[in-house]
């Protein structure tokens, strides 16, 4: 259990998380007050007026205007305060600061990809500088997803037919969980990522180097890194267990029977085709759910992934 943060909330790491938490705790303590009032009242009445022997006639009191007005007006005032308070922060969540860095977010079954203004693309890892507003322009390639970062108290649905926009500004460096909050099918609970908040300098260096070039790695190690960073693991295991897609283990060099009949040799060309045009040859027993990686992976990355798959022998 995460013991940092408060009893209810995880540690807040965005400029707006404090505001959300204060309203949360305002409502919380107000609720505790009313809950104690009602439960204490119940217990006292049940004890004090418990039936002893036969029930006789009881008091006929059924109105008390002062009391009734009080318990209508006080809650009304309280909820109006909460309404205005919640609305104000909500507006701040929706109005993007002018100088924000714009990053394109794409949700699809079942991973996130991020396109940076400088041209880089990452999968399941959003790298951003600390203390800078980040605007997210989001859309989905298939069903509805929802971009949820608990540490930033932010959430916005990602829709297939239009862009949705939200923003945040992280106040501390670190890695924060990113989760899909709108049910999207079999891999919904695996549609996880990280928001990596780094210093300005690190961010600039990272952009400079270009993410995912595999500098200084041999192809197999680079492929292993891509297997994680491009979220292949969501659907393909490396230990032989079939998941949403076939396992990578020992797949190279064998023959696979196909869903529409016949079979194919699993060689470099088949692997490449399956990455770029996944629906072309579906292995028997699996559903045609894999998205294309055309444009997401560069040639060198595809080479590395194939090398990695080849290294996973039985």
């Amino acid at each position: 259990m995460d013991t940092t943060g408060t009893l209810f909330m995880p540690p807040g790491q965005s400029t707006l998380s404090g505001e959300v938490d204060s309203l949360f705790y305002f409502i919380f303590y107000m609720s505790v007050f009313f809950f104690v009032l009602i439960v204490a009242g119940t217990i006292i009445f049940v004890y004090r007026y418990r039936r002893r022997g036969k029930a006789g006639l009881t008091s006929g009191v059924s109105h008390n205007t002062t009391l009734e007005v009080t318990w209508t007006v006080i809650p009304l005032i309280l909820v109006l305060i909460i309404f205005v308070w919640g609305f104000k922060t909500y507006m701040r969540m929706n109005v993007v600061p002018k100088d924000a860095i714009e990053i394109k977010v794409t949700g699809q079954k079942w991973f996130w990809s991020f396109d940076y203004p400088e041209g880089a693309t990452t999968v399941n890892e959003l790298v951003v500088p600390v203390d800078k507003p980040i605007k997210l322009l989001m859309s989905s390639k298939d069903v509805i997803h929802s971009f949820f970062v608990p540490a930033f108290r932010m959430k916005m649905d990602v829709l297939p037919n239009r862009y949705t926009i939200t923003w945040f500004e992280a106040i501390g460096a670190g890695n924060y969980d990113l989760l899909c909050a709108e049910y999207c099918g079999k891999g919904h609970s695996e549609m996880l990522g990280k928001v990596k908040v780094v210093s300005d300098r690190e961010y600039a260096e990272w952009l400079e180097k270009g993410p995912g070039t595999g500098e200084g790695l041999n192809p197999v190690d680079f492929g292993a890194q891509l297997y994680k960073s491009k979220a292949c693991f969501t659907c393909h295991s490396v230990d032989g267990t079939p998941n949403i897609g076939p396992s990578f283990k020992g797949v190279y060099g064998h023959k696979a029977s196909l869903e529409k009949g016949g079979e194919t040799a699993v060689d470099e060309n088949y692997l490449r085709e399956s990455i770029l045009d996944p629906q072309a040859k579906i292995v028997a027993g699996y559903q045609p759910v894999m998205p294309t990686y055309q444009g997401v992976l560069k040639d060198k990355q595809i080479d590395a992934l194939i090398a990695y798959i080849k290294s996973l022998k039985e």
Partner: protein
Amino acid sequence: MNNNETANSISFLSEPKGLKSWLFTLDHKRIGILYLGGIMFSFILGGVFAMLIRLELLRPGPDLVSADTYNQLFTLHGAVMIFLFIIPGVPAALGNFVLPLMLGAKDVAFPRLNLASWYIYVVGAAFALYSLHSGAVDTGWTFYTPYSVQTQTSVVSMTLAAFILGFSSIFTGLNFIVTIHKLRAPGQTWFKLPLFVWALYATAIIQVLATPVLGITLLLLILERLFGIGIFDPAMGGDPVLYQHFFWFYSHPAVYIMILPGMGIISELISVFSHKKIFGYKAIAFSSFGIALVSFLVWGHHMFVSGQSEIAAMIFSFLTFLVGIPSGIKVFNWLSTMYKGSISLETPMLYALSFLVLFTIGGLTGIFLGALSVDVHLHDTYFVVAHFHYVMMGGTVMAFLGGLHYWWPKMFGKLYSSLWSKISVALIFIGFNVTFFSQFILGTKGMPRRYYNYLDQFQPLHAFSTVGSWILGLGFLIMFVYLIHSLFRGRRSGPNPWGALTFEWTTPSPPPTYNFKETPRLTHGPYDFDKIAVEETK
């Protein structure tokens, strides 16, 4: 009337005999019991699904079932509990039995329509069971597009089931509205109606006005799947968010179809077992109507992060807070009713007190979700799951069980074990809180709903919640055992075991086929415990 006479009179249960006499009965009491059978079956089915879900979530990662099966389980749990159990639960089962009795009437206004509504319920349930058999559904009970248009599972038969069940609900609502208008006993003016009747009336209005919208929506979804008409599917120029608007336009008022009749039961129970005139009769009656009307205007609060405009979000948030006020007023009224009463802690009252505690938590946590900025964080997390279960299970189900235990002696003429029923209600109350309070914390910590797998940091709370579901399950198991036992071995009940003042307690338990020997005349209000000395006839 004494016990001897009760035993000798011919009850609706014993005459006429034979299966046919039940399947073609027009008697509202028998139809109520037929409904009760269907509803209890659905409750057990939905409950088993829930237990399996909790068992899978005991530890992260795949344990018991596959991801596909898990997604079907939570969909079926939701669909069965909502459409087959909780919506018809109080009105069609208990309401059907009690409403004409409370009005001093022989039956509902349209007995044949009443029987038809039960058969429609059965046909709808058959479609739901068929969809289970033919590959189940994995969309969540909300059937959100475009997922529901694309998934391979049998969405059509399940939505068709919900579509058909809607008609059953409309028929019951229509029947109740006319019955309440036309069949009240002489002297029973509107403000002398029991509050349960007011609650059923407000519910019936929503049933009749909102359910057709669900019907249209589900029909459009079916057409979309079968013929690709392109209204919701973005691939064809449709708008998936439009579906959400349509769906919640019904389904938010539907939440009040589920809770309002429960509130009606609570008004009866608290007054009767406190032996005290209800506090704020008119406030309670009118607040049901206030809730019913405003409930049509708050659907957008399910969509604060769907990309809807900020102004829409603001209006929906504002109206959401307004709809909360009448519920608060009711809670204060119930509390005040107990003041200076003569409170007896019989089992139905224990359910009413459980309701009071749990519904208060359910209502207060609704405030978090109505506040725009806080909802952004909590939306689609376990906080919503917990809030919903506190209102629906802590609220409606507790009220339903309270009502069931209250009218059980009237329905079957038998008393159940007082000791075992108290053990059971204690287990249910504890089990419920262990199961669901932990989910509030899961939610605020950022655990999204409908997750087959979860991050390791959530494990302790998930395990805690699963243990709660076992306590809850045990409580229900005990309940089923002593209720069934009471049918065969239970002590006979007199006409008025709780000392209540409404009409249904003036006729024998169980009542004769036409309810009353002669049309009763109302001589006092339903809660005049300050004027009428009433004897308990156990």
